Structure formats: structure tokens, C-alpha cells
């Protein structure tokens, strides 16, 4: 139920947003320049201060070594931004590699062509460009964030304090912008990419009970956002339950009889990647349940042991009787929510 406190909080937030937007005019938006971080990083990612920007065409026109890369880039969505009229930030080779005048100093198309005729490959002074591969991970990411701090999906909202950024995993680890014109990491490819570092997760998907990740029908990105998020483990949604019910919506609730707040975290009983137990359970029934619940009576009113058949009925699978344990809307025979009806 909404309370006055909640409504006030919502209104205060909206007011804050309106004020911020008002004070930052649209003109200011278009003229805004990338805000570089601290000076040391600025030195790393801006490039050689004695070099000038020469434009992609001047840099690569004579050198056909990168024709394939340039073609892929031109054909990508970023290729649109080579043109000023795109209305978007300009992107070209020097946006990432830094100004290139020193790299091509003394070179001309004629010289390159002449050398080529003699079988000589003319190299540019690429060492005057930014040494992208050897930058610290944070600086590598800043190269991308210069432009991608804003994006259409806001998927970088929690990037900076997210697990990958904090643990020095850069954008480069997953995104290869020269791989081709299609810059997206496809769901199918994401598995291979994630498993290159998260090798244990790959092994867990080979256990007898698993989500069909190795079968290519569930993907790491179905549950995880590599860019970080509200919840731990880089979950796609704000909590474990909200992530699970994306594909298991029948367990969403709320229910009249909740399993206390155990079901707020599905991982209390299930493991997400793979398990030796059926239904991805952390432990087999009945031990799974006996960890928290007292077991049914083991003796008769006369004091003797219950029979083997009755013991089997109580201690094989609790879920045979308590079959609505994710939450129920119907009272059990006992009149309580015992999840048996």
C-alpha cells in the first residue's frame, strides 16, 4: 500500500529531476564536452599532446593495412557518426587511438605506393598513438565512456561501482569493436565470453541438473548484466526473485500464504547454474526441508517406531504433499498455509 511517506518521496524525486533538467539547457547539452577524469588518466587517454588530429581519411588513405577494419567500422552503427550531420558525437579512429599526425609524419600516398611497388611495406609510427592494450583497465574503459557515458538503454547506470569495474575488468575484455560491423555481443556468444573468465560456472552447467546454457537455449545475459545493477552478482533485475520470475512467472506472487520470506531469495533452496540434485536444489529432499523444519512424528502413540511405509511417505519428497511451497492461496486441511493444497 502506498503511504504518505512514499508519495512524498516520489514527488521529491520528480521535483529534483525537473529542477535539474531546467537548469541544464538544451544548448548546453549539445555543447557539452567530454568530462575527463583526473589528470593522470587524462594523459593516458587523450594521446600525444604534440600530435594533431588529421582525420581518419588522412590517416588511412595511404595505408591499406586497415581497409577491412575501416570498412567494418564504417558499416557499423558508429560509422554513422563519422559525419557531422549525424547530430551525434563524432567518432573516428582518432577518437580512441588519439591524434595521428605524428604517426603519419613524412608519409604520403605516393610514398606508400612507391614502396609497395618495390615490395616494401611502409609502416607508420604507431607508437605515437595511444597504447590501448597496455592501459590500466580503468583507463581502457574511460576510452569508451568518453562517448558511452550516455546510451539509449542506460545499461551503464551502475557500471562505475559494479563488480567488473571495481575488479579492473575493462570494456575491452568483452567488446571488440573491430570484430565486424555488428558490434553487439549476441546472447549465444555471451556464454563463451563469460566462461573465458568464469570457468567454474561453465563446469557447473555440465552437472546433471542445469539450466540449458550449454544447449544454447538460456544465456548468461538472461540473468546477469555484465554492466552491473541494483543487486549483487550483476543480476539483470533488482533481486534474485525478480530475475527468476522473468522466466518462472507462476512463482511471482504475492501469495496469501507466503513461505515466510524464504522465497524472496530463490537461492535459499536452489542453485542457479547447476546441481547434482534434481530441480537445481541445493540439497535433496527431505534434508533440504529438515534443515529448517522439524520432521514429522517418528513414533506411534504407543511409542513404537512408525512403519517403513509411513516413514517413506514422510521422508522421501516433502513436495509430494507440500506441493505449493512457493506460495499458496488455498488453506490446507489444517486451516493454515501448509502448502499442501
Amino acid at each position, binding site marked *: *500500500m502506498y503511504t504518505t511517506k512514499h508519495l512524498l518521496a516520489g514527488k521529491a524525486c520528480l521535483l529534483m529531476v525537473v529542477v535539474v533538467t531546467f537548469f541544464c539547457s538544451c544548448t548546453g547539452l549539445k555543447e557539452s564536452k567530454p568530462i575527463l577524469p583526473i589528470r593522470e588518466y587524462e594523459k593516458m587517454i587523450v594521446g600525444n599532446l604534440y600530435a594533431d588530429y588529421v*582525420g581518419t581519411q588522412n590517416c588511412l588513405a595511404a595505408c591499406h593495412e586497415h581497409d577491412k577494419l575501416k570498412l567494418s567500422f564504417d558499416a557499423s552503427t558508429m560509422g554513422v557518426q563519422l559525419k557531422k550531420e549525424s547530430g551525434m558525437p563524432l567518432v573516428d579512429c582518432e577518437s580512441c587511438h588519439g591524434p595521428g599526425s605524428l604517426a603519419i609524419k613524412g608519409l604520403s600516398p605516393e610514398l606508400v605506393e612507391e614502396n609497395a611497388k618495390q615490395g616494401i611495406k611502409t609502416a607508420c609510427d604507431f607508437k605515437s598513438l595511444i597504447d590501448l592494450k597496455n592501459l590500466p583497465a580503468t583507463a581502457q574503459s574511460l576510452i569508451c565512456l*568518453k562517448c558511452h557515458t550516455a546510451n539509449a538503454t542506460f545499461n551503464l547506470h551502475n557500471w562505475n561501482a559494479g563488480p567488473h569495474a571495481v575488479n579492473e575488468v575493462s570494456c575491452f575484455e568483452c567488446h571488440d569493436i573491430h570484430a565486424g560491423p555488428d558490434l553487439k555481443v549476441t546472447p549465444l556468444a555471451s556464454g563463451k565470453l563469460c566462461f573465458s573468465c568464469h570457468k567454474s560456472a561453465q563446469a557447473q552447467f555440465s552437472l546433471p541438473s542445469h539450466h540449458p546454457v550449454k544447449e544454447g537455449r538460456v544465456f548468461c545475459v538472461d540473468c546477469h548484466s555484465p554492466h552491473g545493477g541494483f543487486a549483487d552478482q550483476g543480476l539483470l533485475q533488482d533481486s534474485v526473485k525478480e530475475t527468476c520470475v522473468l522466466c518462472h512467472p507462476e512463482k511471482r506472487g504475492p501469495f496469501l500464504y507466503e513461505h515466510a520470506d524464504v522465497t524472496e531469495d530463490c537461492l535459499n533452496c536452489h542453485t542457479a547454474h547447476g546441481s547434482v540434485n534434481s530441480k537445481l536444489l541445493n540439497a535433496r529432499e527431505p534434508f533440504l526441508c529438515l534443515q529448517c523444519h522439524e520432521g514429522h512424528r517418528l513414533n506411534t502413540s504407543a511409542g513404537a517406531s512408525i512403519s517403513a*511405509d509411513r516413514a517413506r511417505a514422510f521422508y522421501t519428497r516433502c513436495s509430494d504433499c507440500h506441493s505449493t511451497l512457493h506460495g499458496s492461496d488455498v488453506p490446507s486441511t489444517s486451516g493454515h498455509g501448509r502448502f499442501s493444497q
Partner: protein
Amino acid sequence: MRYKYKNTTCFCSVFMGMVVLCCVGGTALAAEDPDPQQATGAPGESGLEDLSVYYETEGAFSVGYRWLSSADSLKAAEYIYPHSSATFALDLLSCPLPYRYHINAEYLSSYDFYSDAGFAYKDLILFRDILVGVHHNLNHYTYQYSGEPPALTYTDRNAGEKYNTDFTSNLLSLRLKAPDFPFHTFLTHRHIEQDGMIQQRYLLGYFDPAYKVSQSRDIDWQSNAVKLGANSHAGPLELEYAYDNARFKPGPDNILYDSYPAAGDPVRPADIYPHNVVPETESSAHSVKLHSSHTGGLVTAATLSNLTQKNNYSHAESTTWKGALDCSWILDPAVGLFFKYRHKTIDMDTPDTVTLVGLNNTLNYTVRQGISSDQDVFSLSTRYRQSRMLSLFASYEFSHLERQDVEDWVVLPERSDIHTLNVTAHVKPMDKVNIKARYEYKNYDNPAYNISPDASNKLLLTTTYTPASWFSIYLQYILSLTERNSLRYLNSSPAIMLEEGERDGRHDQFLASLSTELSATLNLTASWYYQRWDVDQDLAYGKWQAGVGDLPYWDYGSSYTDECNSFSLALHYLPRPDITLVAGVTYTMIEGEYGYEDVVGGAPFALSSFSALKANETSLSLEIGKMLSREWEVGIKSYVDLYNDRAYDVLDGKVFTTILNVKRYF
């Protein structure tokens, strides 16, 4: 068994739509076909960019047939549609600029498919649709026990039935960007459908009589979730608003009815009552996100969202408020500070009473209030990058949870706190060696459930050693230890909380992987994965004492173990430039034990025998491709899985599939 597929239309329409779009694009491409030489590399005028880009459409199309044979249980084929079928696949990337199209599609059967299709106009309109279908073969739990009729009976109304579901997921996203202004709008739609037949197990009665019943149940579940939003940035600030709406429809068979026997305490007459209801639910959410530019030394991100969920059967409702604040401060390249705050308020609103409507009787019951809670989580992390050889990380997190309305929930504490301390080191003593070591300590104050410890210690060690470019070793070991005193159990009669007993847990996990590139054409990877989960816990059982009721009986030091060893070998070999060979084998052994004492004395059974676990699974795959020419390739892909249920034999089974296909590159 029933198979039906409602989304064929959906899949076909998306696929055909993309084909049409491709054809249109291809036609446009042909009409505008520029001189490739000029387009790809000719020097332009100084300072001007030549944008007449020509990118040749590329991709491949393949058709084939999949033969399948299986025997016994389908556990070995858990996610395989168990019938032979025709197959096809399409990979396409076309860029008749300013349009772009892509399709990656794989169709193995009407119930087993994947498609990722996209369209873009410049960078202004971006459309993508990801469609997945998977067939899931389910276990049929056996009910072939004698019981003790008439007080205890087992009835399987559909013995021998094979259960399975067909899961379909379609995720559509559309992004529109203003061409000359930083403003984006987006729409995502997620459609989930689960269709098939499952085993519904339930109990008729109470303890005496207790009728355990199993029957088939048709399911036709659908969920639709829509998200609409917009974002923009104002100088160094960026803002997004999004609205979500989700609805789950359980289909026509969402309420089951059955004849229940009369019960005594409380009195319930024999009648036909509803049971195992799958309710229709809906939810809506508003969220606002605001962050400063990610390129600053100090970056902050804030989120505020409100989620309302409603059950349309029982009218239970919940409202959740969530708030988040992230701050990162890069003091200099060597030092970073990260602060996170999360808040969550869950307000449960459940009806005070519920009316059970039988065929001839109407009964009212009181309902205890659901648990509302407030949770705050603060975390502070720091990173110190001493050099390329050493990075150190440390973090502290404090989680505080307060529950409301827990008076009726006896074992639940009103407050639970967790303190977490984490220290991590990344060390690179030499170019060929990477070491990561992490230690995490958790302290729980008032843990709510017995599975939560009082304290836990976790150690992680990872090493990568690459002595040569063609050889690398990866080793990882994780040890987790937990301990808990004063377990909380609710005694059944009288209903009192018991605080007694201990629990110790140990989890070991080890992974060794060796990758070699024996030659330019031969790669081999071998790995061993091991995990073991040990718990020693004092368990409570009810033990009747005349005139007193159930008194707890403690089974001290009851042990539970799960263990797994999995070995795998993967090979990639190019014996000739036109032949590709990929092969893999995985052998997994699992075993579990459950220690139990004879708590009554002279019991004619061992509880451990009811939940034993011992099985082996072997899977082999072989894929061979032969290029016939630059455009044509033939291939064969075989897969074998053998599952050996050594404990009960009920899940024994095997599956063998072979796909023969012809591929045409274009």
C-alpha cells in the same frame, strides 16, 4: 502426451519479416551498388570523409535432418525434443547503409529453436527480437508404493505418462533516438509461454487418512511484460524514467478440484475443494534513474523505483520501494573508492481471512499477515593498484533487515544483521603467472533461517600459468566454511520455538583446466571439476509422548554429503584446410549420502534409503565439417548422452542424435 505450439506464427512472422526486410535491403543495395574500390579505400579530399560505404552481405544458410533415438528415461535428453525432425539455420549480416539487418537463427524442431534478428536505421532506430524455444522433458516421480491402505495410499492416476513442457521466450526491443538531440525512447516486450503437461502431486486429507495423489496437469501459462521509457542527458547529468507492466495468465486449467475426506481438528467436512491454484498475477513499476557522467573522477548514480504486485485470485498485494546510490571516486590511478547503498521496503497486504468454497460447504479461516520488511545495505570498497604486478581490494558491507508483523511467525527474528569483510589480491609475479586470492568473512547477527550461519569464512585461490603461448593451466580452489549455534525449530504440538542444536557446513570446489595448442591446427582442452558439500547438523523430529504431545527428538550430528567429479576433454582439429573436426567428451560422477540415526530404536527403515544419490553421466559430441567449395559445406553433428542412475535405476536412459546438414555460404 500433447504437443502444440502457439508461437509458430510468432516465430514465422518474425523470420519472414526479417527475410522481407533483407530482400528490400538487398534490392536497395543492388540499386545503389557503388564501385567497391572507390568506396573502400580510395583517397578522398583532404579533411572530408567518404561515406559511400559498401559492405557485402555475408552469411550462410543450412538445411538438414536430425535423427534421434532414445531409450528408457529421458533424463539423458532433458532439453531435447525426443523425435527426429528437419532442421535449418540462417546467419545473415547485411548493411545496405543506412540500413542494417542481422539474423542468427537455428531451428532444430518446432519446440527447439533460437533466433536473434535485428534491424537498424543509422543509429536512430534500433530493433531487435530474440526468440527462444526449448523443450523440457520432466521426471515422472514414481508412486508405486504399497502404502498402508486405507489410512495411507498412493494413487497415480496417469501412471506411465511422460511429462514435458515447451518453453518459449520472445524478447523484443525497440530504441528510438532523436537525431539531433540526446533523447532516447525505448520499448521492450518480453513474452514467456510455457505449455505442456506436468505431474501434479498433492495430498488429499491430513495424516490419517493421507492419500497421496499424482495426476497429469495441462499447463498453458503466459506472461507478458512491457517496459516503456525515455532518457536524456543534461550536461553532466543523465536521467531515465521507465514504466513496467507485467501480467501472468495461468490459462484455463489453473484451479484443480478434488474430493477431500473429512478432517477433525479443525473440522472440515468431506467435500470437493479447490487445490493447487495457479493464480493470475500482475505487477507494475515506475523507476527513475539519475547519474552523473561516467567520465568524471567522482561518479554517482541514483535509482528510485516502486513496484506494485497483485494476486487476482486471493487479492494479496505487495508494494516494494527500492532506492540505490552508487558512488565511485578515483583519487588517482592507484586508488579508487566505491560506496553503494541499497534500500528496500516491502509492504505486504494480505487479506485477514480467506473463504474456502467447497461444493457443499463454505469455510472461513484467518490468515496471518505476510511479512513486511525494511532492508538497508551499505558497502564501502577500495582498490589500490600498486603496480601492474599487484592490486589490492578490500570491502566492508553491512546489511540490516527489519521485519514487521512477525508475531505469528514465531521462529523469525524482527531484526537480522550481516557484516561482510572481503580482502582480495591480484598478483602477477611474472608475465606468465596470474594469481588471485580472496578471503571473505561474514558475521550474522540474528540469522533468520537455519541455513544462515552465525559466521562464515570463504577462501578463493585462482592461478593462471602460461609457460608457453601454446600451453596454459588454470587452477581454482574455493573453500567455504560455515558454523551455526542455536538452531531455531518450531515444534509442532505444542507450537513452541526450540533453540538448540548446531550446524557446520563445508563446501569445497576445485577446477583444473589445461589448454594446449599442439599445432596450428590442433587445440586440446582437458579439465576436471570437483565439488563437495558437507553438512553436519542436529535435526529435530517430532516424537509423540502420551499426554504431552510432540516432543522434539534431536538427531545430533546428522550428516549430509553431495559430491561431484566431472572430467571433460575438448578437441578442435583441422586435419586439412577444408575439414574441421570438433569433439568433446564429458564424464560426470555424482554421489550423495545422508547419515541418520535410528531415533526411535528398532525402526524397520533407514531414512537415508529414501533419498540416495548415485549416478554417472557420459556425453560425447562429434562435429565434422567438409568444405566442398568456397560456397558449399557438408557437415555431420552427433551427440550421445548416457545416464546411469545407480541408486534407483528409474532415471536410466540414453539418447543419440545425429544431424546431417548442407550449408551454403553467401
